[in-house]
């Protein structure tokens, strides 16, 4: 932990403006609700909240450690102590599941608005922590903060419309997009919208460019390796996968599969419904698959890789100082070791000295037999097995080739979460480990 003296003075102006902006935002919301009939209660709630935010803003502007609103030190250290890759990943998954299952509740404007306010206040309180602020305010990390809020907003916007449509379809009505069927002229209706969007984006970009200077560090030096060394932020999900897989899989094969899988999607999704309007109930399988891939395997890994991975790619809590001296025990074991040594209590199979190349290869295959059999079963036996059980309907509709492509993409995508769980529970390092041909999986 570092002293807070100078840091708080630096961040005070920002936080003052930040809380004032939340106050103004809620003031406007209250005004809009006040004018609507029957929303007076909520209008009063947000007015009170806006006043509270003004109080926080003035406290923050003081810049003194006694006044600036912050999370209590005990809470921060508890969060640091509790957080780790396991809780982070399972926690986000649980959160997304709750949001999905109770979506009809969470899309209600007042509920969503409360959550937005809670997120903003939590963010503000966290920004008063020097360690948190130093990571989040790094110029190249700012876009990710924006991305989180944008994704939250657009997911809400889409889910709200999907909930309405699903409910309409259940009642036998067409989706609401159908109601707006009448045609309008592109000039002026569309070109003016485009113009306004362009002006808004330009203004936003100019403001961003004025208030946040682009990063420029020391001149490049090929002998001074920074710790941690990180790829650009949009690739940090891939870099995070390196914890669980070797570069050939995490950095080459999986990304290629992501691109291929995305391209294949329209040819695999045989469901004709849900074309051209928001809906979830009509296409639950593809919806959940995409959301799992996008949110769990891409976005949350980027956030983890950017904000929570420090020197030596160790995990750090959100309020933890990134010390390069943090030591983590590495006691991961390969599957052959587990099988031959730990389970059967025998040495690893090894070719006798001077054996021919073929014999040596045979011994390598014997040594790796457990992993090869597991992977063989996973990739070759599971697809047909699934075709006659859970995916029976899919198989019938898709035909052999399309089904096999879909099933294999699905299984390969799931290798990541499965490997994560195996690592967390059994400290499993590699399922197959053949350094002879640089093949570790």
């Amino acid at each position, binding site marked *: 932990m570092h002293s807070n003296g100078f840091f708080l003075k630096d961040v005070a102006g920002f936080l003052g403006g930040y809380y004032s902006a939340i106050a103004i935002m809620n003031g406007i919301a209250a005004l809009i609700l006040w004018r609507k009939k029957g929303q007076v209660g909520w209008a009063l709630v947000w007015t009170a909240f806006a006043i509270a935010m003004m109080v926080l803003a003035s406290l923050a502007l003081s810049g003194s450690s006694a006044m600036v609103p912050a999370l209590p030190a005990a809470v921060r250290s508890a969060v640091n102590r509790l957080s780790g890759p396991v809780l982070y990943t399972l926690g986000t998954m649980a959160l997304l599941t709750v949001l999905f299952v109770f979506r009809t509740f969470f899309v209600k404007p007042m509920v969503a608005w409360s959550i937005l306010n809670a997120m903003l206040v939590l963010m503000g309180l966290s920004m008063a922590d020097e360690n948190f602020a130093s990571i989040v305010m790094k110029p190249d990390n700012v876009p990710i903060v924006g991305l989180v809020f944008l994704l939250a907003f657009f997911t809400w916007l889409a889910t709200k419309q999907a909930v309405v449509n699903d409910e309409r379809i259940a009642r036998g009505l067409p989706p609401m997009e159908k109601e707006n069927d009448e045609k309008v002229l592109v000039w002026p209706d569309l070109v003016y919208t485009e113009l306004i969007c362009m002006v808004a984006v330009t203004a936003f970009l100019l403001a961003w460019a004025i208030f946040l200077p*682009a990063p420029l560090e020391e001149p490049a030096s090929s002998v001074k390796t920074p710790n941690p060394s990180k*790829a*650009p932020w949009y690739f940090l999900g891939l870099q995070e996968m390196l914890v669980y897989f070797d*570069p050939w899989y995490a950095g080459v094969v999986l990304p290629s599969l992501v691109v291929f899988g995305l391209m294949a999607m329209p040819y695999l999704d045989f469901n004709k419904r849900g074309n051209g309007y928001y809906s979830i109930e009509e296409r639950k399988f593809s919806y959940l698959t995409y959301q799992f891939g996008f949110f769990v395997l891409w976005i949350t890994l980027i956030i983890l890789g950017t904000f929570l991975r420090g020197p030596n790619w160790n995990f750090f809590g959100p309020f933890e100082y990134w010390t390069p001296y943090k030591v983590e025990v590495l006691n991961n074991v390969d599957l052959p070791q587990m099988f031959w040594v730990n389970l059967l209590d025998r040495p690893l199979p090894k070719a006798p000295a001077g054996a021919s190349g073929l014999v040596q290869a045979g011994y390598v295959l014997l040594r790796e037999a457990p992993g090869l059999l597991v992977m063989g079963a996973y990739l070759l036996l599971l697809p047909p097995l699934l075709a006659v059980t859970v995916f029976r309907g899919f198989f019938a509709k898709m035909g052999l080739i399309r089904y096999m492509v879909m099933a294999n993409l699905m299984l390969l995508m799931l290798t990541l979460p499965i490997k994560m769980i195996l690592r967390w529970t059994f400290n499993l390092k590699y399922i197959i480990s053949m350094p002879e041909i640089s093949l570790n999986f």
Partner: protein
Amino acid sequence: MAIGETIRNSQIWKSIFRHPMPLDRRNRIVVMLTNFFLHLHPVSIKKQGIALSFTWCMGGVTFFLFLVETVTGVLLMFYYRPTLEWAYNDILALRDVTSLGILRELHRWGAHAMVITTWLHMYRVFLTGSYKPPREFNWVIGVILLLLTLLLSFTGYLLPWDQLAIWAITVGSNMARATPFLGYEGPGQQLLTVGGIDMITDASDARFGLLGARFVGEETLNRFYVLHCIAIPLAVALLLAIHFWRVRKDGGISGPL
């Protein structure tokens, strides 16, 4: 409004705009058909197809950001020299000395924003099921454009030639070293030998092809500069043209059938 009238009746004006102002229904249709920049659009469109709650305008914003990147990028190219001697100093001068050095901020933040808006556009297209027939192939082109957007951003990341730049590119391009068969640390590369001579070395593998050298150096800077300023933008421009053309040919913006 005599001056306005005179201008609009002049031969020059009339040679550019072949019809009166788009103030009535007829001329609002004619303007869409006769203006090069507007003819990408249809003449009329379903109301829900232009509702912001439906489109989020993210495809349009992405395209606009591409234009912003092109304009700011060309202006930055007048100033920046992609050599070890000058690259860092030119960026330093853009920050500290040069008028309109803010072009670099606009370019960098625009690039980040473009990555995000591409994802959001794709997210919207997925959530509305708009990749479904007849728009399957346009989705495929979109995926390639997504990949090219990431590559544009990645190649541009190196150009400031500071610590952030070379180490991010080092970490990223180290992956190519592990390409199966084609990277010198990749699985199976040992099998590619001819007469006992290893074909895949650190001077002939996929990473070498990407960097133009064994490590991120001046060759890489030049290679990434050309990719960033010429090769990838040209590919993007071509694919964008096809992407937009196909939006129209595949039945315009999606909507319930």
